[in-house]
């Protein structure tokens, strides 16, 4: 069941993309908030996002991220190998101060590398779940194409595991 959702999203993305005229790309640096039971891990990650507008304020985007650093707690070393998925992006109209807010709904997967006390176990593990988030975006200066944004997004919240990010990004609308 879980795998039908990304297929549906990505099929929609592919079909929509073929006829899309308003495209955008984005780079984010992310502070990762991951939690295993009560232990918190905070590695860093870099994400790239590409999308297009289905409607004036509704976008569809795919993203791919990779870890920049790992974090250790109680002898457990955790690094984020991959963060990938698809989002629907709903935007508010831009204010006269060139600001807007956006909400993200989608589905994502993450692959972690977990090492217990140098044993290499349990190694690579991966999870997928619904994702959601939102943020603020500012059009940089009076440029038509460049935006800076701050976003928070949750990617995993089940089985006593949590993964979310707080990101600072730059977006370019073609």
């Amino acid at each position: 069941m879980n795998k039908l959702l990304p297929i549906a999203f990505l099929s929609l993305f592919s079909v929509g993309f073929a006829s899309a005229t308003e495209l955008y790309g984005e780079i984010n640096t992310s502070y990762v908030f991951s939690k295993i039971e009560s232990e918190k891990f905070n590695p860093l990650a870099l994400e790239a996002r590409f999308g297009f507008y289905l409607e004036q304020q509704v976008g569809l985007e795919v993203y791919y991220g990779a870890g920049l650093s790992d974090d250790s707690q109680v002898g457990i070393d955790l690094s984020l190998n991959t963060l990938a998925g698809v989002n629907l992006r709903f935007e508010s109209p831009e204010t006269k101060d060139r600001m807007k807010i956006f909400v993200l709904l989608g589905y994502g997967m993450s692959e972690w590398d977990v090492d217990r006390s140098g044993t290499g176990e349990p190694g690579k593990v991966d999870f997928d779940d619904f994702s959601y988030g939102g943020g603020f975006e500012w059009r940089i200066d009076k440029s038509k194409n460049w935006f800076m944004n701050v976003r928070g997004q949750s990617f995993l919240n089940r089985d006593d595991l949590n993964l979310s990010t707080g990101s600072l990004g730059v977006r370019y609308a073609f």
Partner: protein
Amino acid sequence: MHSKINQSFKKGFTALTFFCLTLILTACGNSEDAQKVKAALDVNTLNITSLEVSSPRDIMEITATEPFTAMAIIANGTKAPINISNKVKWSSSDTGNATINSSGVLTGKAIETLSVTVSAQLADLTASKEIKLSNAPLERIDILTNPSPVSVCRGGYQLTAEGKYETEVGEAEDIRTITDLVTWASGDQTLLKFGETGVFSTYKDGTTTVTASLNTIDASAPITINDDIDSIAITAGSDTVNVGSTLSFTATGTYDDTSTADITKNVSWISDTPSVLSVSNDTATKGIATGVSVELANISATCLSSEAVVSNEALITVKVLPVIDGVSINEGTANLEFKIADSPEQLTAKLTKSADSSFGKVVTDNDNISWSVKRTISGTALTVSNTKGSKGEITFNAVGITEIEIRYDDKDADEGPFSDVIEVEIVAN
């Protein structure tokens, strides 16, 4: 120009779409991976250095069940082991002939004698035990360690059953402890009842028979219950209880040979005013009184022996339930935080002696922190929780001064152990 850029990006997007599709479809995010990660965390947070697997028998019947236990050895055995049977991943070396469930219960499905290895795994730690599944039939049951005669209104008497199984000529004797496999029965439930496997309690004096049976084979033994109770004394943790709250009573029996025993579960409990304070005689909650309405009530206990020994009476005041939630005490620089539960509203907790200000690592629910009551300086002691999720939570029901010790020991970071003591005084408002 703009159109060319769009076309280039469209190609890139298409490639990226297929790339992401591949990534997501190859992902097998599941609870099994979550269990692997949590198991690794458990091993390190509990400081588990190895595992041990055990079962009551080395030989079992081919279609019987056998409970296995996995114990975590903590810090190379320097601390008490922990039962982690429900945390480990169990496996059988021969699932065609014996399967094992997630609780560690092995079920035989064999048709002939063979051996199976049962393994338990937690993260990268494993342990195993070999068990023989034997199709030898049971020949005889023997009841061992018969404690008869026993005292009236007393519990904890353990019977043991051994099974002798058929062997081929020249084979060593096959005798197994089967206390937990046989069905125990009492000849007279008013005199004697079985609780856990092979453990019985007495309620009245007299003579009866106990029976152990398995696979149509049984064995019996007579039990004589002496009327040798001399007196019963009852006590409670408090002489007051709130409406809707419970108060546990303890009954102590003194016997003719001057020995004493906790007989809370073996006596009959009586309230002289059940409409004010009821007291339970149900097996699981015997001796637990519940406040019903505001007034006074007397509680007593009696043994149904021929002598009908009755205890002293305990006068209990039933009061209105006070409720205080969300009160906290913050200890400034040391970042100490208490949570207060079930405290009567007429009482207040306050710190009377601060922790050393250099001791700044206390975080209420941290695994490296342990809380305990060190001593009672005066009055009635409070209790402090050391259970994950409620660490540092104090509970009190009377005035007094108590010393609480907080220890910090982070072995992974090689910090500690540090400890400090704070004093908490419970005062009347």
